[in-house]
């Protein structure tokens, strides 16, 4: 026998194990209704594969695992799917979860695909596939999918098979070991085959002599399976405590046993692996201890997964079927808020205390800092300090006191002389810490998204501004180019100045008379026109001002004097311009009337010629008419020539006079 190590703390509560007759397995009649939750494990819930009204058979896959950490769910008897909906489940919150409800037909017919196999003929992959397909989860209570646990990448040197069952009252594993010892050994051999290079230690508490005997007998001849008996102490069945007890190693904080090369599995899980590989049967039933002073037919029952707790209580003749029932053991279990809930793959015990035991529970008293809890704590924490911090919601501090390493075993509350529900305080604080962590994660995510959005909006504005600037620059450049090309062509002011200069020079240049003639005539015409316009404007202004002055005078306005001088000025200006015009006209000897007359005569003659040209005779016209037309045309042309000559003469004479 190897040396055993110990673990700190621990308590020795009364065992009450004989109450449920360990080693005697009983069956209950198949219930008419089975309620199979889709999530009986840690990880993602399975996805239903059946519809309401479908006929299903025992062992048929009805919900498929989703993701790496999940487990298949199977029909646990034959019948019809009557509902796929939310029902209350065995959870301390009393919340609903998705379940598949079966109306059993009583035939309990196996699905035809369920076939036995000889593992000797199966390769490793097929064995893994069978374990995975069977939907096996850790049956000790945690419910971690076994296929995922056995598929670990880290090398495992020790497989610990947990048959400790340290909680009082519960004898389900004891019964499994007594009845299915060979199946457990065969299942363990399969698990060892999957893990390779690994030996097994099967650990049992010394309060189960029959189970120890059965397992020693079954494991005889298997060198790689060692049965280890440990002293009875609660909570030696806890994973971390078990490892410390057997190997002397502590699982570091935040690590899992696999990091130490150790893997823990429950004995009932080993039996389930045997069922899956040898018999092809998925995880559809388990052994549950129904015990307590409140139940007459206490014992271990083989129950289909999905059997409701109230049906079991009724069959076992509980004192008050709807009374308070604890699921799990007295130390770590919780009271069911509602007994009409299904028992699942991880449920190992229904504890029905007597009405008297419940009424005896006295209220908590003040903490006296006795330190009993600190001695009992198997995780070497400071329970009273954690209690004070949890009570005052000092969550930052309680984390520093390593609350998260608490395994919620309840040893501290068991020894507490003040009967303080310590574990409830720790559960509350743990929940708050998890909630805070989630909130912090969410806040960080929101912050990132908010900042990303702000940055995006800022970038958009900058890009817009940038585009606007480039557009403005392009427009300015285009305008500048246009202006540059314009200056070379014509500046109206400069052109006017040039013209003026030319005009002043012309009289002196007699030699350039011919060349400047046309230019001069144009200038003169402009001057003549300008004079005319100026005279007209002055006249109009004078008339307007005069009228305004008369109106003002009529209305007895004050400022009439001012107006009068203005009118006077305008009159003078009007006279001046009129005089200037007359002078200019006399100077250039323009007789506007004669010129006009000559122009009219020329226009008339021109019109006559064009008219005659238009009505030119064609071949059909008689000869005499042709002759007449020809004569008329000749006359008209003669007239036009005369008119042209006269007009030219007048124009030339006026030009010569001007120059």
């Amino acid at each position: 026998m190897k040396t055993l190590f110990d673990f700190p703390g621990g308590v020795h509560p009364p065992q009450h194990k004989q109450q449920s007759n360990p080693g005697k397995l009983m069956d209950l009649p198949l219930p008419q209704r089975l309620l199979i939750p889709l999530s009986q494990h840690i990880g993602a819930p399975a996805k239903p594969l059946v519809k309401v009204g479908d006929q299903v058979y025992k062992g048929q896959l009805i919900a498929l695992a989703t993701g790496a950490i999940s487990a298949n769910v199977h029909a646990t008897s034959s019948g019809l799917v009557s509902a796929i909906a939310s029902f209350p489940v065995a959870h301390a919150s009393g919340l609903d979860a998705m379940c598949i409800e079966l109306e059993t037909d009583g035939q309990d017919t196996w699905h035809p695909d369920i076939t036995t196999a000889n593992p000797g003929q199966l390769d490793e992959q097929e064995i893994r596939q069978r374990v995975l397909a069977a939907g096996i989860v850790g049956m000790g209570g945690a419910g971690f999918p076994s296929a995922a646990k056995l598929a670990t990448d880290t090398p495992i040197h020790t497989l610990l098979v947990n048959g400790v069952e340290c909680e009082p009252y519960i004898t389900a594993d004891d019964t499994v070991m007594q009845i299915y010892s060979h199946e457990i050994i065969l299942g363990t051999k399969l698990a060892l085959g999957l893990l390779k290079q690994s030996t097994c230690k099967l650990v049992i508490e010394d309060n189960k002599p029959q189970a120890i005997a059965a397992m020693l007998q079954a494991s005889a001849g298997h060198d790689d399976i060692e049965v280890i008996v440990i002293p009875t102490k609660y909570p030696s069945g806890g994973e971390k405590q078990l490892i410390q007890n057997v190997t002397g190693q502590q699982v570091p904080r935040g690590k899992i046993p696999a990091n130490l090369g150790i893997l823990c599995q429950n004995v009932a899980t080993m039996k389930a692996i045997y069922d899956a590989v040898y018999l092809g049967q998925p995880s559809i039933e388990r052994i549950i201890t129904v015990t307590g002073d409140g139940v007459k037919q206490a014992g271990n029952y083989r129950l289909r997964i999905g059997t409701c707790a109230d049906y079991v209580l009724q069959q076992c003749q509980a004192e008050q079927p709807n009374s308070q029932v604890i699921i799990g053991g007295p130390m770590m279990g919780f009271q069911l808020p509602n007994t009409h809930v299904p028992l699942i793959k991880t449920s190992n015990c229904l504890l029905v205390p007597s009405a008297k035991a419940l009424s005896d529970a006295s209220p908590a008293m003040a903490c006296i800092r006795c330190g009993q809890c600190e001695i009992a704590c198997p995780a070497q924490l400071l329970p009273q300090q954690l209690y004070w911090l949890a009570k005052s919601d000092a969550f930052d501090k309680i984390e520093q006191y390593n609350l998260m390493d608490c395994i919620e075993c309840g040893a501290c509350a068991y020894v507490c002389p003040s009967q303080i529900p310590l574990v409830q305080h720790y559960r509350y604080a743990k929940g708050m810490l998890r909630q805070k962590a989630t909130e912090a994660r969410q806040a960080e995510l929101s912050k990132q998204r908010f900042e990303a959005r702000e940055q995006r909006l800022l970038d958009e504005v900058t890009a817009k501004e940038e585009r606007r600037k480039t557009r403005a620059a392009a427009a300015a450049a285009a305008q500048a180019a246009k202006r540059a090309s314009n200056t070379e062509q014509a500046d109206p002011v400069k052109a006017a100045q040039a013209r003026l200069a030319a005009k002043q020079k012309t009289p002196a240049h007699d030699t350039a008379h011919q060349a400047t003639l046309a230019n001069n005539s144009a200038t003169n015409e402009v001057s003549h026109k300008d004079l005319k316009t100026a005279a007209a404007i002055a006249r109009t202004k004078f008339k307007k001002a005069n009228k305004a002055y008369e109106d003002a005078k009529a209305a007895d306005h004050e400022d009439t004097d001012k107006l009068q001088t203005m009118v006077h000025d305008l009159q003078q200006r009007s006279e001046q311009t009129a005089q200037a015009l007359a002078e200019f006209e006399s100077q250039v000897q323009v007789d506007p009337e004669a010129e006009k007359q000559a122009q009219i005569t020329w226009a008339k003659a021109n019109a006559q010629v064009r008219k005659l040209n238009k009505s030119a005779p064609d071949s059909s016209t008689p000869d005499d008419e042709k002759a007449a037309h020809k004569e008329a045309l000749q006359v008209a042309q003669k007239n036009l020539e005369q008119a042209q000559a006269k007009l030219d003469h007048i124009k030339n004479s006026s030009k010569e006079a001007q120059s």
Partner: protein
Amino acid sequence: MDIIIFAIVSLTLMALLFGGILGYAAKRLKVEGDPIVDQINALLPQTQCGQCGHPGCRPYAEAIAQQADPINLCPPGGETTIKALADLLDVEVLSLDAEAGVDSVPKIAYIREDECIGCTKCIQACPVDAILGAAKLMHTVIVNECTGCDLCVEPCPVDCIDMLPIPITSQTWHWQKPQQLIATDRQLEQEIVGDPSL
């Protein structure tokens, strides 16, 4: 006389030496930015709801750091945030400013999708880009990223956005604080409720 001169000279030299060290340290170990703003911002819930009157949590943190605003303007953070801020800044704990809003249960926006007309107004309003959709197409809220800030409700022209409390699932549920009554509490309770025997 000598000793006085010696004292003055040595003290002056020491003052110069330490002054030099301090000056160098101030330059060499200069802290960039304003770390107090970051610390305050870390305590705010980052819902970016604007109920404090600032366009987001960081601007409010800056206002607190400059002592321009009191610490009690954040309804989503509630009493816990006020307490944490008071601890950090060593000021008195104030009760939540009623004008800013009320401390309510965390909520999440849901769009009644068959009523959505696809106007994109809520998308523009969302401070954390948690609404998905396009013009004239149905919009929906990315539930995991919604902070429940309420800012999308008001711009919706057809009022198809509901603020619903986050449902408690078996994943988010946790144990409540145990009601603990000790003897004196029981006496107090009787005084308040009144002794039925009287």
